[in-house]
């Protein structure tokens, strides 16, 4: 927990069609830590995560991954250095079976396939299946298992809990914690605050174009401004 961030983004500014989405946002991904990125719909969480992953070019600001600093980061360059990005939609190639995804990761990065990962996500019966034949939960489990088999230094997961049942949420959450316990810096976004907080060490709040590091989920839950403007009156009343 004392290591410096492996991924840093700072002074990020991004606008779409004259509308400022991010004005001065920053994000740190720290090894062995799960960082939750939360905020209201449309505040720019996904934009920030996609900028950090090199899928969107910011209007201003920089991204640093490891020792390399980018004004225009690119995912394929950072992924060679250990970044893995799980997007909001499916990150599985429709033309490949689940097993072929694992095989490509093994071949490309020279890692050995950990059968326990496949077992823990109950994927054995889906290895010969194409992604389009899987449910949302099965797909998400497969995607995280593939990401885990890469053994990334940093995983950015945009809304991995969206539209999932509680059991699958638990599997995904435990997978993220396993990655963090292996030293991976995990960044996860979403609106399922209670689920995300259960698996997070730190909270970054995206609001009004900027970001606030609120510390641990417990600290965040005690922050009056955060409670009033994001968690809502029902949570404040509790």
């Amino acid at each position, binding site marked *: 927990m004392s290591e410096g961030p492996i991924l840093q983004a700072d002074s990020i500014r991004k606008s779409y069609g004259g509308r400022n989405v991010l004005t001065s946002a920053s994000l740190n991904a720290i090894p062995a830590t799960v960082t939750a990125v939360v905020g209201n719909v449309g505040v720019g969480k996904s934009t920030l995560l996609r900028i950090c992953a090199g899928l969107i070019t910011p209007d201003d600001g920089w991204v640093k991954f490891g020792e390399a600093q980018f004004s225009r980061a690119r995912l394929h360059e950072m992924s060679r250095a250990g970044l893995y990005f799980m997007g909001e939609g499916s*990150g599985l190639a429709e033309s*490949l079976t689940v097993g072929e995804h694992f095989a490509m990761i093994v071949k490309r990065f020279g890692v050995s396939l950990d059968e326990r990962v496949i077992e823990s996500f109950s994927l054995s019966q889906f290895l010969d299946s194409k992604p389009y034949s899987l449910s949302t939960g099965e797909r998400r489990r497969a995607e995280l298992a593939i*990401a885990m088999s890469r053994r990334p230094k940093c995983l950015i997961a945009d809304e991995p809990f969206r539209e999932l049942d509680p059991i699958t949420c638990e599997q995904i959450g435990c997978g993220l914690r396993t990655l963090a316990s292996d030293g991976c810096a995990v960044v996860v976004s979403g609106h399922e605050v209670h689920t995300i907080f259960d698996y997070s060490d730190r909270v970054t709040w995206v609001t009004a174009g900027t970001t606030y590091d609120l510390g641990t989920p417990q600290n965040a839950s005690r922050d009056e401004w955060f409670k009033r403007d994001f968690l809502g009156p029902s949570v404040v009343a509790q």
Partner: protein
Amino acid sequence: MLWFALHFFLLMIAGFSSLRIPTGSVLILATIGGALGFIDARRRNELLFLQNLGIAPSMVVGAWVVTIVFLEIAIRFIAVAAGV
């Protein structure tokens, strides 16, 4: 299949006078093939996974262009050998 369809289309326009198509048309065909290959990879959700593998999206276009140019060169050799 994509290359075959594009090549067949160009031959159809030319009236099937030869198996070979002009060099300029090969370049156009390779460009169109590269663009269509990229769109197809995007449609099949392949680009994100490829980037996670460290493969740039431009490599997808490049692979299509190189394949089409290679096939066109091959067809020229075959045409010369067959005398058509």
